[in-house]
């Protein structure tokens, strides 16, 4: 209907264009400068002492700053060394970074891999053995690698939590959890994308057996409101009051007691079961500073470090001889720690997951 205008004559918007081109060039310089200033500010403290001969540690973003300060102070005072701590997203991001750099690692030690990644990390040969001096102080059932390529430094139970104001009368057995009164009342996490989700699936496999877990999930599914990708989203929905039951950690209720002064959120313990999620640290194969990396593993197991874990990381210390803060003693805990062997999980998990997915579709 309408013809395009003929485009003869001088080209329009020529000046704007040339102005923009000049500005683009100037901007490239500006961006570099601005970004340098921005990170200069951030790194002002760390950069000065960034001595590559010292100790480089990789961890995930959520590793508490208070624990980082503890490590830094210890190394500065005891050895005159300032470690560099780099954070790589979440546990999966941390693993990927370690794996991609495996031929020429830039880090000496890694803190924070958990059950989900331990088997693969060992198989890929990412870590070298170091048995820390106080290895015997670690609770026996937590030692997942007898060769100590990876050493546990904290752990916790993955289990359900409930909101006692909305659910005064919680279920206590796996069977009671299937009660129709709990229709659309449970928020879970996807085992394919989240650590608690994965561990909860493993818990059902351990409790109901390889032959029974799918049937259990089939019967559970009317009571599930939603299955979120990550713990944050799911726990967010729970604290927003969307459902009275959520998959979380045994140490979540103590958080609300310690910082929000409320005990309405409680552990929902089914037949005394909790699945152990274990966090580990290790010295990297090919590390440049093996000596300092080993000192780090020793320090993580020291009483000084272990007793700071509960209120900073909301996990349990791995040493049996460290006392828990009061908030932790106010909540009910699971007496039976369940933990499937890493190699058994690695061998079967993909199958368990895809069978589970077919049931939940």
């Amino acid at each position, binding site marked *: 209907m309408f013809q395009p205008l003929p485009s003869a*004559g001088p080209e*329009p918007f020529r000046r704007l264009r040339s102005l923009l081109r000049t500005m683009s060039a100037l901007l490239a310089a500006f961006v570099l400068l601005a970004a340098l200033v921005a990170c200069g500010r951030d*790194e002002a403290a760390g950069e000065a002492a960034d001595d590559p001969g010292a100790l480089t540690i990789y961890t995930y973003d959520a590793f508490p700053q208070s624990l980082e300060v503890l490590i830094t102070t210890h190394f500065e005072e005891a050895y005159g060394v300032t470690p560099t701590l780099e954070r790589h997203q979440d546990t999966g991001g941390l693993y*990927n970074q370690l794996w991609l750099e495996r031929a020429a690692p830039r880090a000496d030690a890694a803190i924070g891999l958990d059950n989900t990644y331990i088997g693969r990390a060992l198989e890929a040969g990412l870590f070298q053995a170091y048995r820390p001096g106080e290895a015997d102080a670690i609770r026996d059932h937590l030692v997942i690698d007898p060769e100590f390529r990876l050493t546990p430094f904290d752990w916790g139970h993955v289990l359900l939590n409930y909101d006692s104001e909305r659910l005064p009368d919680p279920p206590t057995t796996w069977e009671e959890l299937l009660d129709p009164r709990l229709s659309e009342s449970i928020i879970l996490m996807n085992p394919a994308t989240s650590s608690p989700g994965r561990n909860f699936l493993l818990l059902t496999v351990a409790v109901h057996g390889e032959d029974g877990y799918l049937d259990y999930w089939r019967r559970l599914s009317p009571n599930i409101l939603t299955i979120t990708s990550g713990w944050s989203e799911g726990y967010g929905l729970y604290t*927003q009051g969307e*459902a009275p039951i959520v998959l979380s950690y045994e140490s979540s209720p103590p958080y609300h007691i310690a910082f929000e002064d409320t005990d309405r959120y409680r552990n929902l313990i089914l037949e005394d079961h909790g699945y152990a999620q274990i966090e580990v640290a290790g010295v990297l194969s090919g590390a440049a500073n093996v000596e300092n990396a080993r000192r780090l593993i020793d320090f993580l197991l020291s009483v000084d470090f272990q007793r700071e874990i509960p209120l900073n990381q909301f996990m349990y210390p791995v040493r049996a001889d460290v006392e828990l803060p009061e908030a932790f003693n106010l909540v009910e805990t699971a007496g039976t720690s369940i933990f499937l062997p890493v190699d058994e999980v690695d061998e079967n998990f993909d199958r368990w997951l895809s069978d589970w997915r077919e049931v939940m579709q």
Partner: protein
Amino acid sequence: MSRSLLYAGVVAYFALFFLVPIGGVYVEAMRGVPAAAVLDRARGVLTAPRTMRVVGFTTGQAALSAAIAVAAAMPLAYMVSHYSFPGKRLAYSLSLVPFVLPSIIVVVCMISFYGKSGLLNSILGTDFNLVYNFRGIVLAHVFYNFSLAIRIISTAWRSIDRRFAEAAESLGERPLGLFLRVTLPLLAPAIVSAFVLIFIYCFLSFGIILVFGGVRFSTLEVAIYQETYVNLDLIAAAVYSTLQLVLSVGFLALASRAIVAARVSRSGGERGLPPLATASTAGRIFMTAYAVVAIAFVLGPVLTMFARALTNANGAFSLEGFRQLLIPGAADRNVEGILRSSIPGVIWRSVAIAVSSGTLIFLLAAALALSLRGRSRPGFESFLQMPIAMSFVTVSLGLRFVWGATVPPAVLVVLGQFFIGFPLVFRILRTGVDELGDGLVRSAEILGASRWAVLRDVEVPLLRRTLLNGYAYALALPFADLTVVLAAGRGRIATFPVAIYRLIGFRSFDLALALAVIYVLICLGLFLVIDATSMHAQEPRRDSA
């Protein structure tokens, strides 16, 4: 000459900070694995029934979400482009807010409003499960992208020369016919553009899907994340990434054809708008009612989130969250320790990084849009659109892997965020620039206007709305980014989304909501300034060609 230099520069930039990082990750992943095994795995992934299901679902929900968003936006786009009304500037700026919200906050907003114990259910006294299913996904996507459709379509609508309509009317065309035979064809490029962009955003959706989709619904982006970060099967991730890239770029190329085919060069320019009161009574009532419902749809969830931030666990009004967040030492938690930054630090850094990334995005996109004006370079344009289709999970991993040791974190974040915003901003500017006629520029030059006079009085005013609209998005997208900052920043850079993420990780939803409110207010302030500039030219201007 300088045009080829610009093109070469852009290609080099893409190569260094986009192609090399992605390639680096996948080459490393496949090193030492025999080619036959790689091909075998790739074939396995491609032929799995789950892959087909994922592609089908991804495409279907994206098409539905985009269609609803565009259709629902039309009446508002008309209203915004034809009338002035009180509060217009504020509403226009507010509509951009969902776009900058981190997905976890979108979830909280949607839940507070549409959730089982949300506001809507409590007003109606019901217990409807509105969101934890397919409906929830589409609802959240429309909420997210509604304003994008309004902005793109209303910008185009406003620049349609009214003489077309007047001519049609004088020839006896009735309003419906006028709309179908004159307005719609003229708007087609903008409508297609908006549809395609929203389609692509929903096609690549990540956070929303897994919160509302449960296990049943999964997008390719989610599959890539799972393979990369959980299954650690980078070969499968590469296959999904390639599939996603091919499909998205394919959709975009098809759309480009449709846009070019429908493109009509026309003279536009700003003109004053009559107040809404001049519309017919029926029209006025319809538009007002529609706007109220739309505002409730978009702002309801945001305002409910505000209300949640201002109430304590017992449901009473409380500023406790803000007090603990803003007053050092007021919290029993060590807030600075959790954020690993002070609050002023978070604000300063967020603004500095968003402005750096946004300005870089805007200038390059504008320079390219003007350079490509009236030309068709389908290959080059598909290349420029590639980042929109690439999984940022992969890009961030690659940036850190390839450049992490040499480029400082903040610089790397800016360089990486460029790719988040560039495709959208480029598309907005390209559509806007190409729709404008060049009569005025030529007239001014023929009349001997000086170099700066042409720039100042003709070129910039003609493009003002398009340019500022583009700039708003260029700022908004980096502002909302979490992935690149977390991955490329190596934990050293705390922007708003990172700070909110860290608070939530520490179970501090109360403080996270308070921080989200502050974040929304700052974004709103920035958009108000930008939109105020773009709407400044309200005085009637003579149309000419």
